């Protein structure tokens, strides 16, 4: 007994210490976000990724854009509740005045808008936002020193802007097509009509920054944002960002009508309570970057965050039904659900630059290659892909116009996304393909379990038409950057990517297959069809119209007929938030703009 006691005594002090720590700490601390005033409203938002920079010139991904549009002002934004998405003036004082030829845009900004107070300004007082600030902000995208990522939006479109860059990017040098007419008037002169211009001005890339702050903080402006948005930054690191209401943000009462409220589909969310109140409604926003699905879900269930995009691994737990997606009864007492179709799609492109599968100087071989691509597409089992990886609630569609765009044709022929093994085998045999002469397919993907599973599933689909397994090889890359380098250098035969649209206009997906955009551009298929290119050029300068829609659909058919891509699926995103919150979150074009309308208190929270 005494020997055992000796043994126990050796181990006891650290155990006792641990127990003591647990006893002392064993209660959840009041989060510091619970502010001193009773009415202090805190909204805690979980994101499944993190931005590395808050500089609007680097707002190239969902996460960076989400924060940028809250810290800075853009001229335009999307109406909070209107579906389909519609533009709304933000910093601008109304929609732009466009000349009859569609080349000159004149935009007035709202009066009395100020940047937040910051030491970068004289006496630390934020000055008024001027039209010149917008001009400066767009010029930054063309300054090589900024290493900006948004120049592609305006490249080759604004008179004199590309030349400004070539001449050394001197900010004191005027750009003829990008001028501040006076403190509140911006004039943009285009080289040719660009109907999507106003959409580009609703992106984080186009956010307005003050020159003195950029000069004062240099590269660190990326972690020290100074803007005029509804919120200002309190802290930012790899785990999250904390934003506080900008007390000088303009006073614009919330109007249900102006935001496009639909009582039938949006009633019961507590939004009616917000009418005539002045956003932003939350005093503080805590955005947590939680990439790990399990950690994100646990944080949500524990009440540490108010909103999450539900990981697919939890769909079984969350959903009572799939079509339409509804919330399971036990969760419905505490949470609300919104099922959003993503504003984009996932597709697998053939590298048309590869002679084994794409274009070939020999016309006969070119026809055989097309037949092989079409056979592969016919063998692809979209329902299985949807079921295994997207819980069966993604929307499969033929071609490259995603379902959430206005130009989508719900009545189009769905044969290209229906599995047809017999047809695939016939196509191969009639063009002389057999197991012995099929080319080795190299399927690229960044290293991850899910990507590997998708590859294996693809290989199993192909096995069903007699494609030998050893002839479908994985090309694995350590990081997405390495993968991107490979496919942008045309080294990958089959490239799977997801595209998130920049604006709600199918032009944004059409350009993915426009010949001159071939890699290193966004046309990773390196597709080059003269007729497609001609139609793209013609439609690119047209305003939305039935004729333009018909042209897009025609181009869509060309991509389908040429068997350029295995496409596609738009994923359904399941968004979940606490019932007490009066809001309608969005991961699409409204994106971060919804934060100013998120009200942590008003909804009441009664189960329906």
């Amino acid at each position, binding site marked *: 007994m005494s020997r055992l006691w*000796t043994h126990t005594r*050796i181990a006891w002090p650290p155990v006792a210490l641990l127990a003591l*720590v647990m006893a002392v700490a064993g209660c959840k601390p009041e989060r*510091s976000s619970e502010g001193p005033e009773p009415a202090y409203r805190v909204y805690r938002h979980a994101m499944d990724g993190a931005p590395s920079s808050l500089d609007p010139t680097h707002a*190239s991904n969902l996460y960076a854009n989400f924060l940028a549009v809250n810290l800075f002002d853009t001229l335009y934004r999307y109406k909070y509740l209107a579906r389909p998405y519609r533009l709304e003036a933000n910093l601008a004082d109304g929609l732009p005045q466009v000349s009859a030829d569609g080349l000159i845009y004149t935009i007035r900004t709202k009066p009395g808008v100020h940047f937040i107070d910051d030491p970068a300004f004289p006496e630390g007082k934020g000055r008024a936002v001027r039209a010149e600030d917008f001009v400066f902000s767009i010029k930054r995208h063309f300054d090589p020193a900024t290493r900006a990522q948004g120049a592609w939006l305006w490249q080759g479109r604004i008179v004199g802007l590309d030349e400004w860059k070539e001449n050394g990017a001197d900010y004191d040098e005027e750009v003829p097509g990008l001028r501040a007419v006076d403190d509140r008037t911006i004039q943009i002169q285009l080289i040719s009509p660009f109907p999507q211009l106003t959409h580009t001005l609703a992106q984080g890339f186009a956010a307005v920054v003050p020159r003195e702050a950029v000069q004062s903080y240099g590269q660190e402006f990326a972690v020290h944002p100074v803007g005029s948005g509804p919120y200002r930054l309190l802290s930012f*690191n*790899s785990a999250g960002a904390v934003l506080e209401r900008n007390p000088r943000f303009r006073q614009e009462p919330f109007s249900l009508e102006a935001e496009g409220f639909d009582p039938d589909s949006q009633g019961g969310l507590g939004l009616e309570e917000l009418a005539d109140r002045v956003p932003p409604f939350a005093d503080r926003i805590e955005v947590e970057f939680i990439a790990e699905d399990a*950690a994100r879900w646990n944080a949500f269930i524990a009440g540490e965050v108010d909103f999450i995009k539900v990981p697919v691994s939890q769909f079984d737990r969350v959903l009572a039904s799939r079509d339409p997606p509804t919330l399971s009864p036990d969760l419905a007492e505490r949470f609300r659900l919104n099922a959003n179709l993503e504003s984009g799609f996932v597709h697998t492109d053939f590298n048309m630059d590869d002679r084994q599968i794409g274009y070939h100087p020999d016309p006969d071989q070119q026809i055989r290659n097309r037949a092989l691509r079409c056979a592969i597409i016919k063998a692809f089992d979209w329902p299985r892909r949807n079921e295994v990886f997207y819980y069966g609630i993604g929307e499969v569609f033929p071609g490259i116009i995603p379902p959430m765009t206005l130009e989508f044709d719900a009545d189009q022929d769905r044969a290209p996304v229906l599995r047809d093994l017999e047809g695939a085998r016939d196509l191969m045999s009639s063009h002389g393909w057999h197991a012995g002469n099929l080319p080795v397919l190299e399927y690229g993907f960044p290293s991850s379990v899910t990507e590997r599973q998708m590859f294996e599933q693809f290989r199993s689909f192909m096995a069903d038409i007699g494609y030998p397994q050893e002839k479908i090889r994985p090309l694995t890359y350590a*990081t997405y950057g390495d993968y991107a380098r490979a496919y942008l250098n045309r080294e990958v035969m089959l490239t799977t990517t997801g595209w998130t649209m920049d604006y709600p206009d199918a032009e944004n997906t059409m350009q993915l297959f426009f010949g001159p955009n071939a890699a290193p551009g966004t046309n990773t298929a390196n597709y080059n069809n003269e007729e497609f290119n001609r139609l793209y050029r013609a439609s690119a300068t047209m305003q939305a119209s039935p004729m333009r829609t018909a042209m897009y659909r025609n181009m869509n058919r060309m991509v389908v007929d040429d068997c350029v891509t295995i496409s596609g699926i738009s994923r359904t995103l399941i968004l979940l938030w606490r019932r007490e919150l009066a809001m309608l979150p969005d991961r699409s074009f409204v994106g971060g703009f919804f934060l100013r309308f998120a009200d942590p208190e008003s909804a009441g929270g009664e189960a329906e």
Partner: protein
Amino acid sequence: MLYALRKAVYGLLLILGVTFISFVLMVWFGPDQTYTLVGKNASAEQIAEVRHQLGYDQPFMQRYLDYVTDLFTLRLGSSNASGEQVSRILARTVPVSLALMLPGFVLGNLLGIALGLAAARRRGQWADRLISALSVTGMSISFLVIVIALQVLLSTPYGLNLFPVRGWQVTDLPSYLSYVAVPTLSLVLVTLGYNTRFYRAIFVEEAARDHIRTARAFGASPTVVMWKHVLKNSLVPIITRVMFSIPLVVISGSLLIESYFGIPGVGKVAFDAITSGDQPVLKAVVGLTAAAFVLIQIATDLLYRLVDPRVA
């Protein structure tokens, strides 16, 4: 003095060796950040422009020399991804990692030593077998499983719901203890198996030596034998293990712990730099880890001489 000087020269050579290997593996063959920094529809000229800015177009030797020069002059530069000065990133994140990892590190080692001693003392008996079996079990369970299980058990309504699932809003001692408790417990559970096995092996070996038998023959109690003779004479390998773990705790942190618990430490920063190819951050972390290892090695050698005068 001569001893320390000799060690410093060896250390310098070691740093050069480590920096060279890390440069080759992580920088030269590491991820190319160009394609994550350029925008959509970038032209070949724009890609070349970014490559030039990042120095990717420089020859191997030039890049290595720049790398070493920057490191030795502590010119750490700014992160390519965020633009923030690397020195500020480290100043912000290293203390967090230290505060996060230290309790688990200390407890894991203390418990490991205690259990190792207990097992060694009862070698072959049920207590030894039980401790060994639990150690192997602990070693076999994935870190991820432990982290997720503890989160669910201690931090969610499915379990006790006592601690925050994640975050690091540390303002005072109670909030620190609250945020550090579950990560510490995870770390202790993960490392305890390895530590116990290691220390047990050392103590068993030491307990079989002649001087222990002599002590027993002189009638020393089992407790005195274990504490005064076995533990004291095992200090050299214990110091080695503890000391060489310190740079990893201070600089590299723990990626999994920081990721799953949402803690803004240096481990996450280092991991992001490795996967994205953010070379200024990467070379600072790798270089400082190498330097810390060398300093630790020198300190360890000096400590050896302190606890064992026979070490020349």
